[in-house]
């Protein structure tokens, strides 16, 4: 059972350093439109549109006794005042658990839980009507603690009780593994309730088009799923709805699930008018999902040789009032708490509790980042006890590239963790002293290593449909139901189209996020879209290139070896034969399209929610801690990413830098407590996110190698920088101060208390 020394023979790294990435980076294709102030969904104003407003619950937990809307209906300018009784179809929505009422009928479960919704001629009239609605509540005990939520006498947030999801996984002989340990570390770690703080709050418009459809235009991550769900709520056939979800003014997972779109659609249906609905920051804070706070008890140990033997984890997550992505978040937390390391025995338990603390849901890093923080703290602490350098200790304990995955499942062989560590071990920031003091300031360098999954776990929405088409103007189109949220999907997709179709980027158009134009590609989530498009073009690009040539042959005599190239079809020798606009005109009645149905690629192992594909990242963080104020300044971050071939250098840089600073925020300043079920802040004056003045120097390194015959190709880059930055910063603070960091964010008070105790 003991692990051998898994240092595989690595082929030379195919490494692109930061300067190399910058040299490869080009302007995003959508930069010009964004710099020209092209409207976002919430900018679609119309003088004809009514203004929507929501009456949310003022109580975290209460029974609704009566709702009286008569006075509100009688006010001038009011066109509709709707309650749950007015919903024609399914009254609730949700993903795995359909538990979230569109409008609350019998009880409210969090502050802001929608009870009624109003449409009026002006925003003022809508607001006046909302305040004129009378609701009688009977207050219920507030469940504001996930541990108490699971006690027998706790008030039930939902009829089925407060335990929404739980799972257990164990393999190996735990008793023997513990007995073999020389060093054991056990502690409880706490991660914060982080807010997405996308700058575009939830907003948009629902209009009636000339075909009798409701056109729902709100930033989202999965227009086709939203269309199906809203159709069910409105009891309309899905073809009576069109959902446009792109571009999005930031999401980071926060707009993955529906929030207010069903309410706007309901108002538009009932009034026959266009309806606008746009939350202010306070309303967005109330109704938007947050990162799941977690309490994580970890116990792990290594033997006298510094070999990890076992890990035990007990995770308790607070999902708030409704499930949304909560169960999948807990699944990811459990799968990633093991890390890329080898053990003799693993014992994991996770529980997810309903509470009245707002709503937690999908957030970049998705459950994994919480447990990776706890795990990487454990690893650093064990390394110190065993007398090893933190990097050497990690290298020593890596699972072999062809080892089973964290839950024992079959995974694609991958040596990314080995490579990421190997690249960092000679980095100047790591070979310099990891700790020094300079009068008032304490400096520390921390290391973290993570691997993280691509796509959804087994049984998730992993399939995708994409369409390749020749447009009327001769553009080679990729149509996908994904949305552009800033991740540079358009740029990455354009690059891949040009590469795989052997054409120029100017020949390509990417059509996204509109259920009337794009197929059901599944969610724009789980770091999956680049990988999906890559697979589609790699596997079907040759067929599509041939289809374009065949389409030309119908009317034109072509050389036998004609092929696609920049601008159009060319002969074998590269002489232009037919440009794409001419081709499109020529086959105006039968322009070719290719529908690509990508099947889900999942682990064959019979383990629910387990993943097949992983990427890896290792990071160094250097912090400067002010011993007078306790403030932590992150000065440098170095991220070594093993994610396969770089598709879009500017996209990779942007995702790495953006996610790293989001992780820095989670580690140092961001938390939204919910005492008594009420968020402690409702705007950016009480909830702080990093500013330009806080941003560190960030160095991004890309390791392009994949294993021979790797079938998956490039790994997603959308999340892993958050995953790795959080534990790297936490470990750096620990190194700088000697503080045993178990709770994020590390506040100045915590630092000062620690320094005073030491003095």
């Amino acid at each position, binding site marked *: 059972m003991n692990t051998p020394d898994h240092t595989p023979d690595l082929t030379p790294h195919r490494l692109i350093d930061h300067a190399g990435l910058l040299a490869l980076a080009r302007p995003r294709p959508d930069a010009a439109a964004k710099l020209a102030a092209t409207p976002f969904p919430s900018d679609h104003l119309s003088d004809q549109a009514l203004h929507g407003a929501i009456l949310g619950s003022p109580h975290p937990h209460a029974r609704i006794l009566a709702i009286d809307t008569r006075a509100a209906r009688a006010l001038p300018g009011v066109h509709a005042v709707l309650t749950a009784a007015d919903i024609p179809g399914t009254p609730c929505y949700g993903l795995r658990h359909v538990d979230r009422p569109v409008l609350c009928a019998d009880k409210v479960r969090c502050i802001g839980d929608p009870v009624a919704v109003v449409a009026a001629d002006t925003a003022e009239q809508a607001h006046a009507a909302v305040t004129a609605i009378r609701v009688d509540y009977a207050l219920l005990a507030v469940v504001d603690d996930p541990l108490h939520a699971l006690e027998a006498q706790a008030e039930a947030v939902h009829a089925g009780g407060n335990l929404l999801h739980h799972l257990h996984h164990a393999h190996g002989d735990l008793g023997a593994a513990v007995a073999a340990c020389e060093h054991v570390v056990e502690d409880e770690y706490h991660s914060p309730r982080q807010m997405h703080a996308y700058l575009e709050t939830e907003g948009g418009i629902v209009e009636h088009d000339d075909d009798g459809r409701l056109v729902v235009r709100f930033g989202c991550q999965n227009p086709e799923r939203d269309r199906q769900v809203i159709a069910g709520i409105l009891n309309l056939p899905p073809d009576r709805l069109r959902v446009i979800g792109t571009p999005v003014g930031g999401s980071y997972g926060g707009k993955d699930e529906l929030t207010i779109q069903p309410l706007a659609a309901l108002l538009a249906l009932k009034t026959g008018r266009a309806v606008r609905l746009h939350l202010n920051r306070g309303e967005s804070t109330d109704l938007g999902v947050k990162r799941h706070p977690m309490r994580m008890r970890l116990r792990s140990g290594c033997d006298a040789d510094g070999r990890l033997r076992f890990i035990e984890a007990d995770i308790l997550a607070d999902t708030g009032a409704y499930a949304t992505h909560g169960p999948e978040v807990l699944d990811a937390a459990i799968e990633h708490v093991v890390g890329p390391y080898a053990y003799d025995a693993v014992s994991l338990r996770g529980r997810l509790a309903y509470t009245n603390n707002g709503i937690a849901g999908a957030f970049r890093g998705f459950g994994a980042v919480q447990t990776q923080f706890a795990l990487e703290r454990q690893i650093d602490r064990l390394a110190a006890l065993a007398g090893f350098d933190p990097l050497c200790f990690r290298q020593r304990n890596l699972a072999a590239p062809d080892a089973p995955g964290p839950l024992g499942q079959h995974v694609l062989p991958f040596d990314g963790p080995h490579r990421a560590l190997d690249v960092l071990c000679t980095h100047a920031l790591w070979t310099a002293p990891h700790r020094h003091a300079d009068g008032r300031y304490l400096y520390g360098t921390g290391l973290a290593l993570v691997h993280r999954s691509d796509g959804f776990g087994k049984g998730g929405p992993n399939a995708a449909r994409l369409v390749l088409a020749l447009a009327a103007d001769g553009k080679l189109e990729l149509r996908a139901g994904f949305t552009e949220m*800033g991740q540079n999907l358009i740029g990455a997709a354009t690059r891949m189209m040009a590469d795989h179709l052997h054409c120029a980027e100017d020949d390509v158009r990417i059509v996204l996020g509109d259920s009337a134009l794009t197929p059901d590609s599944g969610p724009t989530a789980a770091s999956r879209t680049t990988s999906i498009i890559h697979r589609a073009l790699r596997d079907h690009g040759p067929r599509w290139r041939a289809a374009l040539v065949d389409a030309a042959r119908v009317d034109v005599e072509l050389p036998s070896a004609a092929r696609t190239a920049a601008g159009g079809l060319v002969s074998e020798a590269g002489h232009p034969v037919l440009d794409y606009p001419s081709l499109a005109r020529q086959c105006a009645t039968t322009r070719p399209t290719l529908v690509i149905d990508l099947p889900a690629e999942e682990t064959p192992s019979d383990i629910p929610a387990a993943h097949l594909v992983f990427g890896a990242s290792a990071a160094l963080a250097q912090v400067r801690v002010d011993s007078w104020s306790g403030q932590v300044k992150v000065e440098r971050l170095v991220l070594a990413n093993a994610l396969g071939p770089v598709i879009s250098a500017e996209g990779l840089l942007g995702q790495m830098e953006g996610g790293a600073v989001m992780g820095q925020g989670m580690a140092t300043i961001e938390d939204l407590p919910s005492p008594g079920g009420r968020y402690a802040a409702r705007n950016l004056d009480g909830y702080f996110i990093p500013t330009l003045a806080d941003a560190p120097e960030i160095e991004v390194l890309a390791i392009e190698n994949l294993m021979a015959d790797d079938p998956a190709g490039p790994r997603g880059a959308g999340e892993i920088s958050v995953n790795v930055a959080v534990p790297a910063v936490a470990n750096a603070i620990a190194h700088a101060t000697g503080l045993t960091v178990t709770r994020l964010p590390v506040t100045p008070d915590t630092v000062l208390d620690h320094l005073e105790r030491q003095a």
Partner: protein
Amino acid sequence: MITVQFELNGKAVSVDCPPERRLLELLRETFHLTAAKPGCGIGRCGACMVWIDEQPVNACLVMAWQLEGRRVRSYENLATSTESAPVRDALARCGGLQCGYCTPGLAMTLTHLHRLEPRPKRDEAALLLAGNLCRCTGYGGIRRTLAQLFDPAIQAPLDESTPT
């Protein structure tokens, strides 16, 4: 209700509205100028930055009665002007925008700083830009943009190659 007369993007305008109506709401709802974004409504995020008498101001913090006789410029006007061309070019080339929602406000502040005489040094410009929040970029591309625009060693060649 009051009647306020001011200059908006070079044209004289007159609005009847409550005196406390915010400039941000006037821009978006009355004039349908949506480049200024309602990110927070309390002057913390900078997404609604405009110029009043050539100075950058959060439009959510200005009331209608304060506008009498003032010159307001929104990003719609700036976005097509040569004075913002170096800023727009640098933002695009350096990866200074991702989702783009903060971009108009950021470009208003940056263009103002870039026009100042004498031009601020890079570190000074960075401090003055800290009132414009961006949640996507981690400020990596924005820092590169600042280097392009405010580091004398870098900015000279860029200015020459700037398209208008």
